[in-house]
């Protein structure tokens, strides 16, 4: 027989006194219980949640509807990917991923910790909870946190624009004037600009960037239109607001983060933490004194104020100098070689231009690399005038912004560093299925249930680019890159890209001279 723990000093009860004591203890218990209940209620007041009315401004209403539609569309695509596209033998893994997505999209936020500085960096660490699923800790970056650059043609001024979410759920702008555009590139511009922006304007890369978008905007637009078979008006680049790359506009980095994560899931490389789109809500406490007296909390929730990327926490730490040197020296013999080559191949597939060491994490115990901050991937491509090997005029095509990936740079150091067999098999699975589908479609037209991968990818690109023809072309380009990886078991060397950049500048020079 099991005995309960003996309580030291507990009175030994017997007979009548026991009853009295019991009654007394009962009263004490009730009082204690009631005090505890009062405390519990104080700590956990009744919460009444009200959803705010739709905004009166049609623009704001449309913006929120877009946020909702985007998150819903991504969620529908995720259901499709994890339940019917990925192989059945990976069911358990797919289920876990879908549960995590579900929790990040539909779960309650139970903890939030702001990590970045207000007005500089809006990243926060949040814990999401959904009944029946494990809790998910994710890093959340709202789209409004992405800085953009604007040009005002009236004042001819360049501005850095920081978007801020207002109390009412609308997104406002905080602008910092960079310089008068007319002054950029001129020797005396630094005299007329404030001290704190001088250093930034001196940065040739920034000046080059603005010049190419402002001066060459129409030309670039035409080159992009030629590449995708669209009109220059359809090119999804804004005229007066720029992102950090020529072919990557500001305002959709969270979708790019999401797309890169899903490409990683599709090819099953395991090198990008699971990322979802998340609709941000704004919660305001509107309790009155009366509510407080009645021990209740009234909160007003404004839904879909912004779209954010929520990324599961990565394991490991940033790439160190020591690790970089080890990888360079040991190449394919390094413990993390397999994973780094996968990341290099993913960077190639996803047209990454921002994979610097700060965006690469490594977990030593497992030899696993993770690629973070994928907001600058999937830029637009173009067709441009260049020269062939004989120096004759020729058309060339490729991404506008050159690949930049430490993973690609490192893996090209060793010729015997190749993509692992398991990863190649995954690529072949997608490639074969698509090839068979396209061949069959040519003969008998569209086939229901077949070619799931290409259909999924095109839908993913549709979400990202918002243009049917661009999505279709990007889907085809993806499979060209996939084929390259299967044949060569590694991405092309970046030196080829350097050549591309050189060709590009050459072509631009030629055009400028001709003009």
């Amino acid at each position, binding site marked *: 027989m099991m005995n309960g723990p003996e309580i030291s000093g507990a009175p030994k009860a017997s007979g009548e006194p026991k009853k009295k004591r019991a009654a007394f203890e009962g009263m004490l218990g009730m009082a204690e219980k009631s005090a505890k209940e009062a405390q519990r209620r104080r700590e956990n007041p009744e919460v009444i949640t009200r959803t705010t009315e739709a905004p009166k401004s049609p623009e704001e209403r449309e913006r929120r509807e877009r946020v909702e539609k985007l998150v819903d569309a991504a969620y529908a695509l995720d259901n499709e990917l994890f339940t019917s596209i990925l192989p059945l033998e990976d069911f358990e893994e797919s289920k876990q991923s879908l549960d995590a997505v579900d929790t990040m999209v539909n779960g309650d936020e139970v903890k939030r910790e702001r990590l970045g500085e207000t007005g*500089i960096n809006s*990243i926060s*660490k949040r814990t999401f909870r959904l009944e029946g699923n494990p809790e998910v800790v994710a890093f959340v970056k709202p789209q409004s946190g992405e800085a953009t650059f604007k040009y005002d043609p009236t004042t001819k001024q360049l501005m850095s624009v920081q978007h801020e979410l207002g109390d009412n759920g609308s997104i406002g702008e905080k602008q910092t004037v960079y310089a008068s555009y007319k002054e950029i590139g001129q020797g005396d511009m630094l005299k007329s600009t404030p001290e704190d922006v001088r250093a*930034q304007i001196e940065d040739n890369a*920034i000046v080059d960037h603005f010049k190419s978008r402002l001066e060459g905007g129409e030309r670039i637009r035409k080159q992009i239109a030629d590449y995708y078979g669209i009109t220059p008006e359809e090119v999804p680049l804004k005229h007066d607001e720029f992102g950090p790359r020529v072919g990557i506009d500001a305002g959709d980095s969270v979708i790019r983060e999401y797309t890169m994560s899903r490409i990683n899931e599709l090819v099953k490389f395991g090198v990008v933490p699971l990322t979802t789109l998340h609709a941000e809500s704004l919660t305001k406490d509107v309790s009155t004194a009366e509510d407080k007296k009645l021990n209740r909390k009234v909160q007003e929730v404004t839904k879909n104020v912004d779209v954010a990327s929520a990324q599961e926490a990565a394991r490991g730490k940033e790439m160190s100098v020591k690790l970089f040197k080890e990888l360079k020296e040991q190449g394919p013999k390094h413990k993390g070689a397999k994973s780094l080559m996968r990341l290099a191949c993913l960077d190639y597939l996803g047209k990454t231009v921002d994979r610097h060491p700060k965006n690469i994490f490594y977990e030593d115990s497992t030899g696993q690399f993770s690629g973070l901050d994928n907001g*600058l991937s999937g830029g637009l491509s173009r067709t441009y005038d260049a020269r062939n090997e004989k120096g004759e005029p020729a058309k060339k095509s490729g991404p506008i912004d050159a690949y930049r990936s430490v993973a690609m740079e490192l893996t090209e150091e060793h010729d015997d560093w190749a993509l692992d067999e398991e990863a190649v098999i995954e690529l072949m699975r997608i490639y074969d299925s698509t090839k068979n589908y396209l061949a069959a479609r040519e003969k008998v037209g569209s086939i229901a249930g077949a070619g799931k991968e290409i259909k999924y990818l095109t839908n993913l690109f549709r979400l990202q680019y918002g243009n049917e023809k661009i999505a279709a072309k990007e889907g085809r380009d993806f499979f060209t890159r996939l084929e390259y990886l299967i044949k060569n078991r590694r991405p092309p060397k970046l030196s080829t890209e350097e050549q591309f950049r050189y060709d590009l500048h050459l072509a631009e020079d030629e055009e400028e001279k001709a003009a």
Partner: protein
Amino acid sequence: MTDKIYYFPMDADGNETGKAILIDLNQDGSANVSRLPEELRERLETFGVPDALHQTLLLPKDGSRFLDALLRTANGYTRFRSTDKTPTV
């Protein structure tokens, strides 16, 4: 312009594990990263931090621009703040 920020050491779960470490400017305008843990210092001195456009990598010699870039790229794994928390050194 930022002339001093703090680095907060963290564990793998993102919890702060130690007191803030000051990064300020040297007399020559460069950022003084000498108080940082060796691995981090070496990483920042070698790889640098991307600028606002992620085009150029800024190094400690870039002074306050470098500090601004650290604040901008702070994430759940490496935390920098321009706070008034008392530094350890």
